[in-house]
């Protein structure tokens, strides 16, 4: 087959984008809820919010580079996207384990996101291997 672009990766990237919007809004809402219901001092609220915002800022170029790399069958943008994915995974693990309050819903959302990242990374590696060869 002449088409090297990976269809599953494309679908996954697309779904990831939509899910990430929902994830960002839900996590932000839950941080607001936690700050009202529990005792959430300012010096612990700031790092949590900063991590969430950083993750949101990273997600946009990551998805864009992933789309672009997959569609143009270029391995450089895909590789860059893979690098950014590593950063996002680290931030996601922080929100899963080292947040001030980890609610059950937090755990669920982060676990889903982490599995999506894992699957994506695997597909990207396969696509890069296909493009390079």
């Amino acid at each position, binding site marked *: 087959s002449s088409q090297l672009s990976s269809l599953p990766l494309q679908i996954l990237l697309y779904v990831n984008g939509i899910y990430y919007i929902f994830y960002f809004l839900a996590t932000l809402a839950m941080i607001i809820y936690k700050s009202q219901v529990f005792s959430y001092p300012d010096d612990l609220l700031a790092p949590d919010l900063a991590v969430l915002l950083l993750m949101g800022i990273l997600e946009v170029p990551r998805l864009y580079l992933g789309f672009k790399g997959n569609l143009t069958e270029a391995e450089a943008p895909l590789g860059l996207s893979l690098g950014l994915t590593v950063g996002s995974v680290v931030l996601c693990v922080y929100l899963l384990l*080292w947040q001030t309050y980890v609610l059950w819903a937090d755990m669920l959302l982060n676990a889903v996101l982490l599995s999506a990242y894992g699957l994506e990374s695997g597909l990207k590696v396969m696509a890069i291997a296909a493009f390079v060869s």
Partner: protein
Amino acid sequence: PADTRDAAQARARRLPAPVTDVARLCMCDLLVAQCDINCCCDPDCGAEDFSLFTSCSVPVVTGDSQLCSQKAAVYSLDVEANPPERIFQLIDQVNPSVFCIRSTNYKQALYLKSPEIPTPENFDRLLDEFGGAAFSAEPDSWNLDTDAPNPPDANETHRYEHGVPVHTEDAFLRLPSPVVSSWCSDANPAGFLVNQATKCIRSVSVEKCDSIQALSMLFYINSSILAVPKSSQLVNISVRSVAVQSLDGTRTLLNSSDVLRLPMVVDELCLNAVLGVNYHITHTDTGEIIEAAAAFVLGAISKEALSIEQSFEISFTQENTQPVPLSGNPGYVVGLPVRAGFRPQGYPSPAGFLSNKHSQLTILQSTSTQDCLAAQGARAPVLFGYNMISGCKLRITAATKCQPLAQTLLDVLKGQSFPEYVASFGNSQAQAVLDWVPITQLHVSEQMISTTLQSSCQIPVSLGIEVKWTKYGSLVNPQARIVNVTATITSTALKQPPSGRERFIPVTSSVVFTDISSPAEPGYKAWPTINIKLPFDFFYPFV
């Protein structure tokens, strides 16, 4: 040595660690080393104690219920078993909510913060933060808010209000009074419109009597009173009268009161020492002081005296009014004298009743000698709500004449000017004639059936005043109102003893206050009605 002392101090500064294990926590364990009743988690209770419990006051001990899964200690009583025994279970409680806390990286989140132990370093900061009446997160902002409205108020007309200390040039007008013991304390300020009379003991010595400030007249009149607080208008305290009391107690009023008499030592006596001060402050109805006068009683202190009793009084009168003290506003206050008066000649008169300080309702006051004829003049005012009984003994011999004796006894019982009317409210004005209740006078004579009904002369032996009062006004704030006053004079026949012998007859007078108020009936407002009416042309054009 120093390091162990530091270690001990460091240990003392730390509070004991909080207990977080639910199996060891017990909220109802209040008594130390004793079993608390119905407390199933108390470790001091044994099996015999559990068999006497009826229920568990604390059934479950858990941590924060927001956690997704936590340990819970469940205590219950098995009443089926004989004897009843306590069941203790440690179970895992699960919170089914999606928003339960799975884990937290913030240790103090679920526990109360341990308070800081005050040390010499942080004491000032802790006092600033927690020393006030309310803990505020930002104490500085509170101060700024309360300072702002005050400066504009300072320029407005400040005035004295009831209870506010009377300001003088340097501090406050002082009325020395006994504080904890009977010794005089000079730090008691006189409150505006608070009439006070105090007596206290001051320690003196004749050698130093001209150096003790509190014995000299100057101490009481040298600082002028401010007409209104925080103003510069001064009112000087003038000397109204000076009375000199000799060592045996007789007082003479001096003619000239302008001369300031300071204490001086003359042959082992200290003369002109202040024994009493009576302040009279005149004020306007807007709370401004316009006049102040002081009446002094000066006395002599002998060498043996180590302390003297000083008495102080202050009274406030409004300008252009006659000072008639109210006994309540409007209802009578328990403990204040019952106000009484006379109907002047030529009633009805526009002035109303005559009521002043000399027309009080009084009863005979018992004296230590208990002799009726010697005690003439000593009378006690009738205070509202206080039932009183007093009496004296009358000595009669064969030579006593009946008719003058009856007249004397009537004077002893009723006093020189027995009033005719009593004010029904504590603040009844003399002009309001309907507010005054006439005193009904009854004469009852004791006639014993066995004695012969000869017209022997009767002498009054008892006066009983019965004051009937009722609660008047609203249910939550009833006012006392006098409805009826009856003065009953009981007379008995004079039985003269044989000559050479004497008899003692007891003479009594009493005041009784009876509450005749009918039970209160609460009145309820009518339920509001819903008034719905259709508009006039609602069914146009059918109607």
